[in-house]
């Protein structure tokens, strides 16, 4: 399905949607869950899989961009959707109830970017040790000079 047609379809339903770089959809934070339900259930979109879930830090705009990549095996199209979050207290609904793949990817984003996923069943650090301080992929993350604490492997 052509991108333009998708945009029209989505805009009908979610008027707040914006377009970025002529290929990405940017939706409002509160629209995420309805949007996910919409793209999963609409036959014209038929999204099957949450392929990409990551976040990018934009300190200049004081935002953290959540980046979602949705993919449809049936219709073979790809949709990149962004959600812009407040950098101070980033928080967004979890997608684990729709896709199991969101589980680990959200944990990773939580670990490295510090985004809180509301309703995530198991929000732990995944790549860094449990006692790690800070979130590594933030632009303002500063490396501590040395390990302060002995990691407690349990």
């Amino acid at each position, binding site marked *: 399905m052509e991108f333009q047609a998708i945009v029209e379809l989505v805009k009908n339903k979610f008027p707040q949607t914006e377009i970025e*770089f002529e290929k*990405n959809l940017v939706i409002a934070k509160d629209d995420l869950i309805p949007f996910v339900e919409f793209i999963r259930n609409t036959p014209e979109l*038929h999204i*099957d*899989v*949450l*392929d*990409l879930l*990551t976040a*990018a*830090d*934009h300190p200049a705009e004081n935002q953290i961009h959540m*980046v979602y*990549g949705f993919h449809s*095996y*049936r*219709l*073979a199209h*790809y949709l*990149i959707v962004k959600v812009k979050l407040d950098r101070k207290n980033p928080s967004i609904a979890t997608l684990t109830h729709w*896709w*199991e*793949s969101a*589980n*680990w*990817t959200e944990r*990773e984003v939580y670990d*490295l970017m510090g985004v809180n996923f509301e309703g995530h069943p198991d929000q732990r*650090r*995944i*790549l*860094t*040790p449990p006692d790690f301080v800070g979130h*590594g*992929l933030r632009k303002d*993350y500063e490396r501590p000079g040395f390990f302060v604490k002995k990691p407690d492997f349990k």
Partner: protein
Amino acid sequence: MSHDTQIKKEPSNLSSKQFRTDSPLIDQIPGRKRQILRESPESELKMEEFLLNVGPQHPSTHGVLRLVVALEGEVIKRCDPDLGYLHRTFEKISESRSYQQIVPFTDRMDYLGSMNANWGVAVAVEKLAKIEVPERAEYLRVIVSELNRIASHLMWMGAFGADIGAVTAFLYGFRERELILDMFEEICGSRLTYGYIRVGGVAEDITPKFDKLVREFLDILPAKLEDYHNLITGNPIFLERTRGVGAITLEEAISYGVTGPMLKACGMPWDLRKEEPYSVYPKFDFDIPVYYNGDCFDRFRVRMDEMVESAKIVIQALDGLPEGDYKVKKLARNIKPPVGDVYVRQEAPRGEYGVYMESDGSTKPNRVKYRTPSFSNLSILPLMTVGWKIADLVAILGSVDIVLGDVDR
């Protein structure tokens, strides 16, 4: 092939196109249902849970993976992977390097499929900066990446054999992989971390010796594969250990974002080289192996068949190699792409490899995300292993074909 005689032959090599035109694709697939009776109601009367720490130092975790396994007798009740032992913050480092400098990190991520890993980054940068790559370079990229796929699967086959106790297969897999490594050594001087595919083309042109090596190798490959099938596939113990073991359904696989051979083993004829063709893949004739049971054995068969298909591509590409430059002649030392982002997806040996790259207009990317196949493929492990024996854990883990560098990045 010998292994087909024992197993009901499903329709393989289905062109995925034929599914898409008529109706939604997944609905068409003759699927396979599984019921997991995880625990019966009276489960409060149970034996003591026995926690076993598999890894991070363990012969079969393929690196530094730690699995916390709750056992009941020999049966796995829970399996909780603990990642991050090989986390080397490549995404963070990439943000502080110029675009060309990113490429070598990807070598260290998926160290068994370095060529493919390089390629994704190169394409991402090329797309961001709108660089046109000469056709010869594309052909060379296809050749080396497919060779790398063969090498990776050979290595995997050996390791999988070793995982279920057939140590000899391990050595056999390595023996043939060695030939491919020789070829790579010939063109880029390196045997593991190549950095061969670069922004704007490839590092060096191929040599006649490389051509000769490749052709020789492709000549002997079918016979060698036959050998492997004789050694492994026909063995009843192997079949017992793999058939039906760690089976997942297509729905589960899709929900967990599983890609690559694991997805093909579940019955989905999905391959980015066919479905969203990139580079010069549309010019080649090859098939996508598909099997339907989603178990270890089907994953094995998919990979074995993929090697044959890759060999087909390589020989076609080598025969049709156009003359011309192997790289963009004039490339800025510091590329400054315009503001924007790009997401590139490619079919790596382990599955879908994606590079998400954001440019803020400077010489360094603002954000690079590697969507690695091993990470999402590993995420289904807890589901796959429940109810199986501890020995199956190793087989299942082996069948996932993880590279810890790829998981932890």
